[in-house]
């Protein structure tokens, strides 16, 4: 039997058992679609987080007082000892360093805000106007002009805070009280929602010198630095480390985190997550494979007399085995194609339902899904096909 004839003959068999073909195809297609959609979801989540980080501000370097010996991340920094405070002088010294475009000192704390008899607790940030540029914060109204000080007592309110304290009128220019200090509302944040744990809608920003007075401290919580370019982040980090070490009597007591280090960590975690999710989806493909094996075994016993006849008219073991293998191959190929189509439609649906989630299926996942479908299909048909090939023709034909 020529290869072409084997392909045609097996294809015709597949087509003639329509219900069986559709069911197997569906099982295969759902498995493939699951892999495609779930990887799209995982990869979409990764890109979503990456976008969030970029929204933090680009080329960001964060300087945290204290140093923990364990490498990386926030956690070490949070539990680290603080032998020496970060000061405004430390921050100001960075301006002259190569690679530093701008910096902003940052203090963060909780405070009570009150105006016109209304009172609530807010997250208070103290910084300079540079923070707005570094963190990509936008003002809807007014302005914030704080520099290294001393600064006038002005505050920028989050949109939600402004609305709560001044439900009836314009907050701009009004007087508010933060703790025991009075401020004038100089600006209002644009609605931006939450980004990496900071919600500007519920934030109050004041000049850092007033924040230090309010919190009764001389030190800084963080120094935010914007490097001149992404490629300059690494070198700038080094320069800052050396400069601060010099200022701190040769002691390296700050933690410097580049944005790309955080990005890389999250990237790694989310890639692993995507792989895990697609692995789970691949299990459904394996289940489909077992279904295929089951259906093909039934097909072999249903078509026993046909197999006996093919042997009687001169089909070899190989001919019969190939015919059954090709049958499943057709189904697996069709299932993979339909599955890819379903998967891409599903991902499109996800993107339409959640526009902020860039759920595009990665190419590698689609290829892996197709390959898995084909391998599973063929593996599942080896047993039924060789069973068919080994059938005793006399017994096969004696079944009426």
């Amino acid at each position, binding site marked *: 039997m020529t290869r072409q004839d084997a392909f045609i003959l097996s294809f015709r068999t597949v087509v003639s058992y329509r219900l069986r073909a559709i069911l197997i195809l569906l099982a295969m297609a759902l498995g493939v679609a699951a892999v495609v959609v779930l990887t799209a979801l995982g990869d979409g989540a990764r890109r979503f987080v990456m976008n969030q980080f970029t929204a933090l501000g680009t080329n960001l370097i964060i300087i945290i007082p204290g140093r923990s010996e364990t490498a990386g991340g926030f956690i070490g920094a949070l539990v680290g000892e603080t032998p020496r405070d970060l000061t405004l002088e430390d921050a100001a010294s960075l301006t002259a360093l190569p690679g530093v475009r701008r910096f902003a000192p940052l203090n963060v704390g909780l405070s009570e805000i009150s105006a016109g008899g209304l009172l609530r607790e807010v997250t208070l940030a103290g910084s300079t106007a540079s923070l707005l540029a570094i963190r990509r914060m936008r003002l809807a109204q007014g302005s914030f002009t704080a520099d290294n000080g001393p600064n006038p007592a002005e505050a920028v309110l989050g949109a939600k805070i402004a609305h709560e304290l001044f439900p009836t009128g314009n907050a701009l220019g009004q007087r508010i009280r933060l703790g025991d200090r009075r401020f004038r509302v100089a600006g209002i944040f644009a609605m931006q929602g939450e980004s990496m744990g900071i919600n500007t809608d519920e934030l109050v920003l004041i000049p850092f010198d007033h924040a230090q007075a309010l919190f009764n401290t001389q030190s800084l919580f963080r120094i935010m630095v914007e490097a001149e370019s992404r490629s300059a982040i690494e070198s700038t980090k080094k320069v800052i480390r050396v400069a601060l070490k010099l200022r701190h009597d040769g002691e390296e007591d700050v933690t410097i985190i580049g944005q790309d280090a955080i990005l890389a960590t999250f990237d790694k975690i989310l890639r692993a997550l995507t792989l895990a999710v697609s692995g789970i989806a691949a299990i459904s493909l394996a289940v489909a494979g077992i279904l295929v094996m089951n259906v093909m075994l039934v097909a072999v016993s249903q078509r026993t007399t046909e197999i006996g006849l093919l042997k009687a008219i001169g*089909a070899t073991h190989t001919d019969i085995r190939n015919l059954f293998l090709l049958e499943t191959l057709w189904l697996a190929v069709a299932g993979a194609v339909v599955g890819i189509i379903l998967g891409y439609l599903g991902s499109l649906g996800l993107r339409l339902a959640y526009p902020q989630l860039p759920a595009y299926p990665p190419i590698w996942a689609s290829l892996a899904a197709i390959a898995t479908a084909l391998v599973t299909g063929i593996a599942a048909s080896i047993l039924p096909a060789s069973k068919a090939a080994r059938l005793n023709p006399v017994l096969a034909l004696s079944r009426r």
Partner: protein
Amino acid sequence: MIALTAISRIFTMGDQEVRALNNINLTIAPGAYVSVMGPSGSGKSTLLNLIGLLDQPTSGTYLLENIDVTLLSETDQARVRRERIGFIFQSFHLIPRLTAAENIELPLILDGIPSAERKKRVRAILQQTNLLERADHRPSELSGGQRQRVAIARATILNPAVLLADEPTGNLDHKTGAEVIALLENLHRQGTTIITVTHDREIGARAHRKIQMRDGEVVSDD
């Protein structure tokens, strides 16, 4: 030429041995017309399956055209079945999803003959067997006699030396049975060896050589 020497075929059923064929010695000349008769369980179907290489003897030698075919590999035996032997069954054994023409074409496909050549040969044999207008019908749309004619066309399309018929008229009424027998006898006149296993005395009597079997042995041969 078929030469069976001391052929035995023993089946084991549980702990019991069944001698389906017991020391058969038989020579069938090329172009012979042979009928094999006997009661159920006499071994006549086993004999036919052995001659058709669907079954292997437990002992003895089987020469087909001077080749000991029992020693051939599985693939070579399949080739012999394909090219030298034709089978006809009581229940036709047509593949239900294929048309008459496609059923007839199957042995040609298995033999690797190119498509254009196949179509030509199938058309020719459809014409000979008077099935041309039924070519595109599936077996379920054919009468019993037509089905058996399709089966005969399929068995003979590669011009086999031997045609083995196992109760070829068993599922047919008397008239269509006679038509099928006439078709077989026509093939015999063209030189094909015909071996028919049958219960029907009348059909058995038409053969030139009549073999009677009982309990796995040949009891009369004339």
